[in-house]
């Protein structure tokens, strides 16, 4: 095993410093070292999006990124995002649309929705489907999730 290294990055708006194994993935450091359990592991291979976080504002799978690669970056997880007004709008929309069943995929979908609406506040259905295509949900068949994103977009437009 390699000796531990020191990694620093901004985590949910605060400076964070971890002395940890360089072999860890960002997902491991978030879950094990930082205790952020809302970031889920569904596949560990970059296929399901359950581990989605925003890295410098862009949606990434934290299971596919070695933690040493995020030194100096800005990482936003569901834990930090869930304290924002945008989160309230998005999660209300998910609840009202019925988009949450087992919930294991949901934090990842919420982050993907946040990333999309940041970049494109008025997406059409095709753009929504494309933006969420890296996240898997086995429960819903996606219809209600897409409705939720549409309604979140409309509400955000209305609240501005």
């Amino acid at each position: 095993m390699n000796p531990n290294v020191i990694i620093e990055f901004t985590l949910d708006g605060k400076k964070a410093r971890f002395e940890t194994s360089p072999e860890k993935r960002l997902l491991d450091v978030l879950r094990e070292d930082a205790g952020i359990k809302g970031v889920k592991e569904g596949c560990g291979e970059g296929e399901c999006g359950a581990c989605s976080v925003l890295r410098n504002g862009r949606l990434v799978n934290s299971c596919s990124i070695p933690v040493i690669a995020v030194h100096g970056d800005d990482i936003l997880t569901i834990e930090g995002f869930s304290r924002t007004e945008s989160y309230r709008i998005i999660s209300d929309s998910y609840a009202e649309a019925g988009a949450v069943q087992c919930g294991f995929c949901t934090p990842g979908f919420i982050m993907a929705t946040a990333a999309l609406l940041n970049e494109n506040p008025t997406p059409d259905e095709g753009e929504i489907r494309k933006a969420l295509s890296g996240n898997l949900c086995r429960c819903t068949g996606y219809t209600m999730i897409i409705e939720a994103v549409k309604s979140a977009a409309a509400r955000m437009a209305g609240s501005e």
Partner: protein
Amino acid sequence: MHKISTSTLRPDSKTKSSGRAEYISDIELPDMLHMVILSAGIQHGKILKKTIPPLPVGYHIIGSGDFSGINKATIVAQDWPFFAEDEVVYYGQPVLAVVGSDKIECGNICSKIIIDYEELPAVSTIDEAVEFFNDYTIVKGKPDECFKSAGRILENTYRTGMQEQAYMEPQGMIAEFSGGRLTVRGSMQCPYYIKNSLNNAFDIGGDNIRVIQTETGGAFGGKEDYPSILAGQTAAAAIVTGKPVKLVMDRRSDMLITPKRHPSLIRIRTAVDQSGRISAMDIDCRLDAGAYESLSGVVLERAIFICTGAHNIENIRVRGRSMKTNHVPSGAFRGFGGPQALFAAEMNMYYAALELGVKPVDLKRRYQYRQGDRSVTGGTFRDDIKLDQMFDIIERASDYSRKYKEYERPSSPGERRRGIGISYAAHGGAFTGSGEQEIIKSLVRLKAEPAENEDFKHFIRILVSNVEMGQGASTTLRKIVAETMGLPLEAVIYTVPDTDVVPDSGPTVASRTIMIVGKLLQDAAEELKKNIDSGSPVLTAEKRYVHPEEFEWDEETFKGDAYPAYSWSINVVEVEVDPITFEVSITGSWGVYDVGTAIDLRILKGQMQGGTAQSLAYSTIERMEMSGGRPAQASFTDYTIPTTLDFPDTECFFIDNPYRYGPFGAKAAGELPNEGPAGAVAAAVSQAVGRIITEIPVTPEMLEAASR
């Protein structure tokens, strides 16, 4: 529409969205150890020798010798060992486990263990299999005479593939043993199945076993059987080490070594009499059970009991066998034998229609079950069957008949070929036959607790062993109690199942939670309301299931009412097939459902849309092949479940048809959307390519090969 059907907000949405919901992988206990399983790397062989490297302090090997009771899980049958003894019979079978504080170190030790085998011949497929676990035959009417006097006999064979449940949360369990008590918690559908299985595996006394469900990230049947194996393995390690032991599977091992939907091979002979009527069917249904029986017998029952689908055939002989092969035992998956049987039944009607020169939909409508008809097992369809009304709805929504006619016109070369298919499905609710009464004996309890509140005087606590796994039971069961007692939803509390706290109301399977458990809760709620209103000091109410007397069932002969009530659906699916790549795109999907009364329309719609996506994928993109006994597709990279880009929205319609023994008239719902869509897809593709599809998943490679 009953007012209970009005959609409510699910209270669990918020904790799940924010990431605060705790799944098993999120739970850490002090001093907890990790467990890594050593799986067999061969398909079939004798274990000659196990060479184990010296272990660091604090690391242990766990195996078949660590069970003070029996080294076998109880999953209906009692034949699947927690760890192999002298023989491995499937690739991936657990042989040993390493337990210790560091998971990576456990894995390193595992990779240094050497198992010497003497390899034995293996049986990989249903076609090769000779041995079987179960062999059932049912005869209805006089099929032999009909075949003798038939004007024509049609014959065809239908195949369905393996399907992975692909719940997003991988399986996991934590066991603890302290003070002589064993506590197991994890992702599961059936807390009391696990408790019972542990009670047989360890001589520690049932009272000393506690099973707690944790937030369950999807299950679809996949967490009905295998959690009993994981519970036994982690419990053995906890008992040996005296420390909490955790095992959370990674996606690859979950895909490699947990049960999947049974592949099937179904041959149907159809007798047509001199006047052109279908007089009889002779059906041979084989399911690929894998290496242990486990619950295959019950899956097989469901398959043969519904072997003609939603169609009334007067004379039937059906033989069903669960074939023994060397791969991971097949298990429960939403529909439980139904989807295989329904696919074969629907495509056989399609085939018969083409042979008889009528439109498939006309033939299906001619033979659809009507009230008073007899089922395959000779039971009576007692309730109104509204398939005609349902057809009108889906015809209007999908424009089926006009499109069917349009797509019959030959397409010009190079043009995308279009097709539209319709399928009928029936699903019997709850356990088969007398299972609810004889085996499950469901018991529910309600408890009134004082509330300091202006709006209501008591909180009503629901105590049942049926879990929330995404399907919404923690909301719908509360709605039933709240509505019955005239209370707001906030006054009713759902208790997360813990066998120390909740009675055994049975497993969360077979679409029985609302229909059976919900009804018992409604009855209990009525009694509790009476007690409270009359000022009685008795603030609890219990109800145990009693089978309505009108239903009869003989478990020996499989004669009588296999299910108390049936739910019905009609699906229409529209496709386009690329003439060069043979890629199938689904361009439209509609479903109309009779599930009695809807307890919550939005939750129900979520069930139907999610289930339909699973079934559309079952028939198209989800392919799992066994190669040398191991799944060739063992990750989401190779085994592709639907994304947002694969399928259109499914338009859903519900008709009201209250069932007299269901809560507010509700009957089975959850499995229904996995029954019909595959048959509609295959019919649509058949029309598009002008050749009948008899095997799913239908892939571009298959279509291309067939076109040559």
